[in-house]
């Protein structure tokens, strides 16, 4: 199964919600749409579902043009961020609802609903109404409705965003297994970079109505094609600062420079933007690390990690390190860049060296 968007554009009035986009999704693993709120993930999902029609361009499913076809004829299922189930139906009837519309026989419905409920551990809840379920159970019911339908395209629009932390982890672990070997193209929208990495598969990073990169998730993370992708695919946010390359050295600031080694060594002299993920900026210097004299602005401690936002030369940087580091807000502190983790982008934002 494949889903292909060909030169799809979505305009509403004078606003362009989706700039010209071409994308080919396959059924191998999850296809993650990663982007901040407002990047266009939900619009793209609605276009894929057929809930909205593209202003121009084509949508092909298995090579067949489905542009303009109604959602019900496209054989898609959609799970929302909100727990959407029919409020007056029992869990059984909710899961059975897509099959009832498709006029599947009663015995077949019982069998398939039973199987799916088993898979999602909903069997004891089959007789209850959605309002009598916890949030996690409600969302599992919604997922069961998507699974039971056996559709060729499964769209998951931030399905875990409204669940509490523990449930989110539990369900996130199960999701890839639930949809494995179902022969469906699975699209998963999220705003969390860590979620994309955990789910694996392919990731399309989105920003301002454009797909900035699409490829295998680890590749998109390690070798972002441009600064925008790196920005979308980094949490805490990636540090970006202008640098100049001169005489084989990279100059960040007065007295802050390092020798251009690796791929950047071959690039011509000139102005670049350096991108440094926060975990390459730490309070402990290693060998060859570049010292930054900063002033701590904000700290976030998570127990296993310490994140510090600090000011250096009027620019805010973010440093991330293991363990609990005792920062003093407002005090000066030395930070060190591990330059092996630097990404260099040209004036147009394209990656020059990783």
């Amino acid at each position, binding site marked *: 199964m494949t889903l292909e968007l060909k030169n799809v554009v979505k305009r509403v009035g004078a606003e362009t919600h989706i700039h010209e986009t071409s994308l080919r999704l396959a059924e191998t693993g999850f296809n993650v749409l990663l982007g901040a709120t407002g990047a266009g993930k939900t619009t793209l999902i609605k276009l894929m579902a057929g809930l909205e029609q593209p202003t121009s361009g084509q949508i092909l499913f298995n090579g067949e043009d489905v542009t303009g076809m109604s*959602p019900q*004829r496209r054989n898609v299922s959609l799970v929302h961020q909100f727990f*959407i189930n029919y409020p007056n139906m029992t869990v059984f009837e909710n899961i059975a609802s897509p099959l009832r*519309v498709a006029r599947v026989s009663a015995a077949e419905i019982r069998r398939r609903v039973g199987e799916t409920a088993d898979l999602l551990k909903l069997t004891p809840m089959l007789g209850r109404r959605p309002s009598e379920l916890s949030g996690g159970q409600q969302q599992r019911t919604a997922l069961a409705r998507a699974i039971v339908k056996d559709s060729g395209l499964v769209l998951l629009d931030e399905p875990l965003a409204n669940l509490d932390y523990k449930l989110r982890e539990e369900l996130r672990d199960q999701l890839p297994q639930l949809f494995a070997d179902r022969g469906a193209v699975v699209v998963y929208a999220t705003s969390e970079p860590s979620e994309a990495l955990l789910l694996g598969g392919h990731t399309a990073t989105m920003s301002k109505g454009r797909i900035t990169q699409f490829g295998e998730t680890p590749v998109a993370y390690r070798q972002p094609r441009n600064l925008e992708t790196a920005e979308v695919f980094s949490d805490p946010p990636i540090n970006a600062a202008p640098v100049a390359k001169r005489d084989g050295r990279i100059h960040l600031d007065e007295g802050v420079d390092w020798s251009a080694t690796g791929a950047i060594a071959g690039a011509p002299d000139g102005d670049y933007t350096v991108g440094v993920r926060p975990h390459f900026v730490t309070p402990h210097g290693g060998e060859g690390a570049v010292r930054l004299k900063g002033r701590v602005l904000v700290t976030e401690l998570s127990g296993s990690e310490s994140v510090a936002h600090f000011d250096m030369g009027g620019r805010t940087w973010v440093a991330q390190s293991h363990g609990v580091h005792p920062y003093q807000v407002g005090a000066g502190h030395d930070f060190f860049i591990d330059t092996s983790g630097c990404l260099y982008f040209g004036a147009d934002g394209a990656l020059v060296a990783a």
Partner: protein
Amino acid sequence: MKTENQKAWFLVLPVIALVAFNALVPLMTVVNYSVQETFGNNIFLWSGVRWFEEILASERFHAALTRQLIFTATILAIEIPLGVAIALAMPRKGPWVPVCLVLMALPLLIPWNVVGSMWNIFALPDIGLLGKGINALGIDYNYTQQPVAAWFTVILMDVWHWTSLVVLLAYAGLISIPDAYYQAARIDGARPWAVFRHIQLPKMKKVLTIAVLLRFMDSFMIYTEPSVLTGGGPGNSTTFLSIDLVKIALGQFDLGPAAAMSLIYFLITLLVSWVFYTLMTKDEAE
């Protein structure tokens, strides 16, 4: 260290005083009247439950209660479905929303006795637009003389005046349904009737419960509009409970029976409201 005193009671005194003046004292006055016989000069004689027995056995009360029940059932049967239908037909976004809302709210802003007077004139067979119009269609219509015409007019007036309330409540329920539900229905291929039955109606249930209760209580206690429109006539044909009550209390100055009737009236309203509420919220309690 813990100091104990009773000063905190002073803080609840204002509330006790307020409740006493606006609820307890008037209610107890009515109870007082209902068990005594009253003459002028503040002479009271104990009469026990005599007035209650008299009212409950009186055919006049039965007739008024029957008229009241038929009236309330009729307007509920019209106003609730009609209100839901209008709410469904109203736009959910766009420039027409405020226009529709204001149009809907207009009847609710008119004082009740003005509504009665308006319809009184509007429905007059000789000069009223409605009355003359109906007669022009060849139908003999005169609400001051025909009970059927009087009922028709009273019900039409109530529907005109109060359907808006149901519309506004149902509309509030409708617009609170997230778009995601409609999208899910479209993906399932649910038909409009299924969307109404399985999404809109269940999601409107809470506001509709409130709408039914409000319309029940208001219509069950209706006084001003029919009193101005028909004065309870022709004959007793539109004499609902509260109109009858006022006739007994002020027209005949039978304070004892009127008080007993008030209490019975109050208990019936309370009982039916409770039954409605229990039935309509049964599912959630299960």
